[in-house]
């Protein structure tokens, strides 16, 4: 009888080798949006985020027997995703300028997508500009600060979860977060 990974997490001694592709699809459906979002925010490239999301689930499936249930499936998947993103960033050198141009284009295009409920177009535009400025600061953070910042404020994870995903101590996460927040606040205060 096959079982899904969450069931195996609850009953880890029943043997994770029983999980099938069809069981794993449930995990994919449940987590693909979050994995894609984190990868997109780190990499800034929809194509790369799509490819690495697929790669992430493939890696997770092939190494499923190593999953002992010591953390949540989400933490485990995001850890794989962040590691893939780090490797990808390390390896991508050639297409740097091309990607940079595309990010700029997307940033300009997103100006038109104002959040709903804004009282006036002018105030919306100001808010949009402020938000873009914050994203620019986030992009300028160190890779680790950026990961911590995104997991904290976009994924709304607590410090312990972030430490688990990034394989850091909670104190280190706290220090990185403090510096990142200080930089962003500095930008907002201008």
């Amino acid at each position, binding site marked *: 009888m096959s079982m899904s990974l969450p069931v195996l997490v609850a009953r880890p001694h029943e043997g994770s080798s029983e999980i099938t*592709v069809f069981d*794993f*699809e449930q995990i*994919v*459906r449940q987590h*693909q*949006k979050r994995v*894609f*979002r984190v990868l*997109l*925010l780190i990499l800034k490239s929809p194509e790369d*985020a*799509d490819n690495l*999301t*697929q790669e992430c*689930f*493939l890696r997770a*499936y*092939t190494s499923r027997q190593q999953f002992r249930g010591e953390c949540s499936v989400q933490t485990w998947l995001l850890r794989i995703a962040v590691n893939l993103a780090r490797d990808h960033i390390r390896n991508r050198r050639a297409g740097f300028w091309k990607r940079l141009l595309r990010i700029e284009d*997307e940033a300009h295009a*997103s100006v038109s*997508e104002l*959040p709903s409920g804004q009282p006036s177009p002018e105030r919306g535009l100001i*808010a949009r500009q402020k*938000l873009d400025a*914050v*994203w620019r600061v986030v992009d300028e953070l160190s890779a680790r600060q950026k990961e911590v910042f*995104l997991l904290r*404020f*976009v994924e*709304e994870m607590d410090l312990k979860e972030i430490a688990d995903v990034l394989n850091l101590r909670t*104190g280190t996460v*706290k*220090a990185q*977060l*403090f510096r990142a*927040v*200080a930089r*962003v*606040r500095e930008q*907002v205060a201008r």
Partner: protein
Amino acid sequence: MIPDKSSSDFELPPDLCGALRGDALRRSDRSNEFWARQQTTIRARLISAEPTKQSRLRLALVAAGAAICVALLLDTPSDRQPAPRPVVQVDPDQALLQTIERSLAAGTPRALAPVALSNDSSHDANEFSNLNKEYRDAN
């Protein structure tokens, strides 16, 4: 080392947090077709990554073959005794004949030249004594 900070030092204003998260969600938002296509692609990759029973059997056979080859290679050479060379029997008469033939073909060695000369001089001496004998007989 970060000195003791209040929790507010690790937080952003709530409206900014909300705006950032909302913006991130909007940026990463995709159509249902996109997610369905991604699921299909992932499923295909998972299936192709999973070894089938046939491929497992094939892998086992290849591994067994390789193990046999390695065992044979390790078993072959060094600790075995080398095979004794066959002893060639030489006929002494045949060997002597070959030595003579070689000597004749090589001609008179230089080292034997004085012997040749002495042969010549003894031949001359015999001729001289014969002439003397003829002279005495004639007288």
